[in-house]
């Protein structure tokens, strides 16, 4: 039995997840489907979204906020942070634009979460 706090929304439901002998996973305490999905993933392959900042070449906006465009394996976070710390954005890109692929670490892209490089 594993006690979990669901991170899907601010309600923060307290979940209990148990791996049964037949390979099934029993989840209780969730109040919606997202809670169930979260607990299943926590018991098998925990996933997280990752948010950070990357350096830019522009003095008026030196740090561009970024996030992964999907959840990535929790175990991939240290490698993804290494990739992020080496990036310097040299074009004035907009919110939602792709900053970098996350390959070969995991699937997905890093996207900009601000239009600070193109507008005030």
């Amino acid at each position, binding site marked *: 039995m594993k006690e*979990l*706090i*669901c*991170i*899907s*929304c*601010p309600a*923060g439901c*307290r979940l209990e997840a148990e791996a049964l002998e037949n390979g099934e996973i029993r989840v209780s305490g969730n109040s919606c489907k997202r809670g169930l999905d979260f607990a299943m993933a926590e018991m098998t392959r925990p996933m*997280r*979204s*990752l*948010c*950070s*900042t990357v*350096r830019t070449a522009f003095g008026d906006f*030196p*740090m561009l*906020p*970024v*996030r992964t465009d999907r959840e990535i394996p*929790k175990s991939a*976070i240290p490698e993804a*942070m290494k990739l992020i710390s080496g990036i310097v954005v040299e074009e004035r890109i907009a*919110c*939602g634009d792709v900053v970098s692929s996350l390959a070969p670490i995991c699937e997905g892209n890093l996207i900009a*979460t*601000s*239009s*600070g490089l193109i*507008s*005030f």
Partner: protein
Amino acid sequence: MTDKYDVAVIGGGPAGLAAAIAAERAGARVLLIEREARLGGILKQCVHDGFGLVRFGEKLAGPEYAERFLTQLRGTGVEVTPQTFVDEISPLKGPRADRVPPPTGFQLKLVSAKGMRNVRAKSVILATGCRERTARQVAIHGTRPAGIFTAGSAQYYTNILGQLPAKRCVILGSGDIGLIMARRLTLEGARVLGVYEAKPIPSGLPRNIAQCLHDFDIPLHLSKTVTRVFGHARLEAVEISDVDGVMRPIPGTQERVACDALILSVGLIPENELAEALGVALHPVTKGPVCDQNGMTSVPGVFSCGNAAHVNDLVDYVSESGETAGRAAAHYAMNNSQFTMNHYASLSVDDSFLYAMPQRIHLREPVDEITVFFRSREERGKTRFTARLGNEMILNKNYRQLRPPEMERLTVPLEGAELKPGDVIALEMEEMA
């Protein structure tokens, strides 16, 4: 020269952005005044995600949430004046200045790099957000070395300037910003030795305890606080003490923890200097203005929204209150001659509430329903919430659990209640078996 507007919005964070857009859509000529160079307020530095789940059904990063409103704002005729400070605000003195409400509005003295400018507005929206409590406000003794930051300052250095403010730090207070910063600093390579909380329960949301502390093996120490700091040029260590039931440090429990930074996440207080200058009545618990269901304060024509009114847990609610105040301020600006001050019913809460918003209900126009936000004073299990008018039950609702860090939002139907001035709607809570 004096420029005339219907509505002046002070503050370009999430509350002010929503207010300015809503006021303009309601037909008002709007001026949005922002102190910083860029709009978006604190969202600019909140690079973590989780914003907008209520409003957009998505988990957005802070700047991304702001961007949704900036895009809308660009499509309006709202005039924005960035890098502008409101130096003075006062009711207009005119031939009828002794009358309530002030018939002609307010005068604002604005200061920016371009110089000084006087503007007039028929109504004013205070969307000035909140401020963080500092080390001096939580009675930490010792020297005054560099390395003591509020969580918001540490966030600014890290996310806006790209300068890591700590290599090895202690976080005092388990508020959400502190938890978010524990994760952020860890991701950037700093070592977070622990989060210390004087209260026996954490202040932040459970999901932030999980995803910011548990995920990174950062210990959370409850009923412990920082009692002293050491170091001259730079912080060298902090003294941690256990605290008793009333949060007094227990002598003999001190331990010394070597660190180069102390980060404080010990609470937020609504910013209301301008409100005070206008003589707006403040609420002793929320520390924000006493408001009606439209965000109007005790001074006719002065509105409050977002974290300036009371500290919210979700930005989605901040935007909602901005929109409410924006619409109402536009309406007031165009119809203020018909406004009457003595048409109020009120909301009262029993001791189980920390507070409820709004505190009163303006009745000049028919009120079908009001949106109420409340916080429980203590952590509670199954609880029945009731709203009654005299002996008449207006609403009851059951909650599985209530926790002070989480704000509850509900709609109280008032159609058919026939509220009269002076009526009191009593909000109560009752533990259920």
